[in-house]
């Protein structure tokens, strides 16, 4: 009887007889550690709300490097690019604008947007297409005769008014020591941005629905790479390197809809610098405090995507100081490091607000813009976040890189004398206007 098989019985039972053989959870072994990490990752994946995810993500506090976007460290932008896996592309992202004939006035009702292949407004005074140098002050193109969609003269007068009011008409006392930037360029920037945004909100409905923050906070916490703990009771263990950015941009515009992507998600536009040394050689210092992820408003706010940030450089990073110490090449480094670090923190925090994190990488790119200025010189940056996976395990599987487009700093004006602004540079103003008019295709 033991040699005959009962026909018809299903040989493997529906559920296995024994539980699966997996590593222990509490043992002091690498397999147990990886099992604990996986359980933690599953906990974060299974979190119901974004707030819960953020709380679990930043629950464990350990000493981390504080990354300051506005830093005097030499060659900081190279180090910041290696921490955030960013490729720096000089110049602005290419706007594939077709050479739009000015005569086709009513043909295309779309209004121009900065990095998008949108056609400029028909008969716009603004030069359509990046090929034309917008140095020509007012292009005599409103051949259509329709109300020029973009009156550069009006915008220029707005900018000059703000500048003169702050620096010439208003009677201010001498600024306190090292408070020059809060005295004149700060209020000028606020006034300029708010008036330009208000006047351009008529043709950019996204601006009409946007939120302008004054001196907001932007924080982001992430892990990248590993190091061996050198000193202390945890000596010899391999630890991830943790970073935290705590940034206070001067102004920030948040919008309810996301800006469109500039290049596809998987594009490769350059190389990320690889630095073998520890981040403390930059110099960068460690501290242990709250792991905060914040874009400027809490998660429930409808304006949860970023549009533009405006940064004001402090007094200790003035141009004159660098020239006096014969460090002229570091001037641009300051602008670039500020742009890269602040925009990375903002876009990554926006992505975390949508539920993505290093184990759940972003499925669509997050785009934001920034303007870094010291009152006179303006530098423009556009950042596309393609990947959040920067930890040791996830960085191996993800070939994507974040991309940052940036310009050099150009002066907006030469000098302000006697109620006149001498040498006003229209290019800078037009680039600013293009930034503000940037909007997704559907609108």
């Amino acid at each position, binding site marked *: 009887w033991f040699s005959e098989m009962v026909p018809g019985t299903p040989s493997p039972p529906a559920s296995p007889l024994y539980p699966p053989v997996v590593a222990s959870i509490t043992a002091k072994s690498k397999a147990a550690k990886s099992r604990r990490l996986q359980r933690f990752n599953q906990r974060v994946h299974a979190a119901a709300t974004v707030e819960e995810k953020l709380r679990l993500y930043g629950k464990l506090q350990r000493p981390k490097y504080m990354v300051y976007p506005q830093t005097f460290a030499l060659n900081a932008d190279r180090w910041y690019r290696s921490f955030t896996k960013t490729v720096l592309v000089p110049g602005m992202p290419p706007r594939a604008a077709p050479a739009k004939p000015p005569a086709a006035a009513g043909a295309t009702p779309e209004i121009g947007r900065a990095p998008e292949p949108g056609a400029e407004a028909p008969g716009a005074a603004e030069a359509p297409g990046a090929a034309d140098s917008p140095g020509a002050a007012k292009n005599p193109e409103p051949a259509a005769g329709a109300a020029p969609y973009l009156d550069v003269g009006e915008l220029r007068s707005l900018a000059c008014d703000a500048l003169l009011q702050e620096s010439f008409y208003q009677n201010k006392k001498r600024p306190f020591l090292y408070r020059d930037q809060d005295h004149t360029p700060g209020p000028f920037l606020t006034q300029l941005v708010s008036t330009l945004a208000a006047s351009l909100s008529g043709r950019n409905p996204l601006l009409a629905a946007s939120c302008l923050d004054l001196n907001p906070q932007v924080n982001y916490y992430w892990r990248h790479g590993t190091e061996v703990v050198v000193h202390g009771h945890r000596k010899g263990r391999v630890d991830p390197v943790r970073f935290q950015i705590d940034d206070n941009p001067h102004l920030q515009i948040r919008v309810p809809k996301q800006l469109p992507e500039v290049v596809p998600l998987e594009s490769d536009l350059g190389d990320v610098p690889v630095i073998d*040394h520890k981040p403390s050689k930059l110099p960068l210092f460690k501290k242990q405090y709250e792991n905060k992820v914040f874009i400027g408003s809490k998660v429930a706010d409808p304006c949860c995507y970023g549009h533009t940030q405006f940064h004001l450089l402090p007094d200790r990073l003035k141009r004159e100081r660098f020239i006096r110490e014969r460090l002229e090449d570091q001037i641009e480094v300051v602008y670039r490091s500020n742009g890269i670090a602040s925009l990375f923190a903002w876009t990554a925090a926006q992505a975390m607000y949508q539920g993505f994190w290093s184990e759940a990488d972003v499925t669509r790119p997050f785009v934001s813009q920034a303007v870094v200025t010291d009152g006179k010189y303006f530098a423009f940056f556009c950042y596309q976040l393609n990947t959040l996976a920067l930890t040791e395990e996830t960085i191996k599987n993800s070939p994507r890189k974040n991309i940052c487009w940036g310009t050099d700093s150009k002066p907006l004006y030469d000098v302000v004398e006697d109620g006149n602004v001498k040498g006003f540079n229209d290019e800078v103003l037009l680039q600013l206007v293009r930034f503000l008019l940037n909007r997704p295709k559907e609108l």
Partner: protein
Amino acid sequence: YPLFQRGGPQLRIFRPNFFMLAVRPGVPQPEDTVQFRVSMEMTKLDIRNYLERIYNVPVAAVRTRIQYGANNKRNHRNQRVKKPDYKVAYVQLGQGQTFQFPNLFPEKEQDAETRSFDDFKDKFMEKEKQKQEGDPRRGGVPDWFGL
């Protein structure tokens, strides 16, 4: 010497009594960073001026720290022996210059004569050692007993 006031002629010359010692960094430093041991009384400004004026080295940034010398060792009288404190300066060079601490004791290339002499010496020492040891068949057991 007449009393010096600002704007007046400089009649006295002060030569610094400092010296700076370039050392090999214990942990790897970035290419543009040079590590020095300097006198405890030197400041960052002093270090910068010293290098720029005397040696014409463009200095971009200087960071200093004081290394405490330990006081744990004891001498034959059980008194604590202090290792001296010293200040370490990390100098970042300007104008894109780099510095790599040189290897002060490179392996000297031996010519044929030295090499053959070394081989001869090694073989001689080996033969001497074999004469000292006893019979290998005894497995290291001394031979002052037995047959």
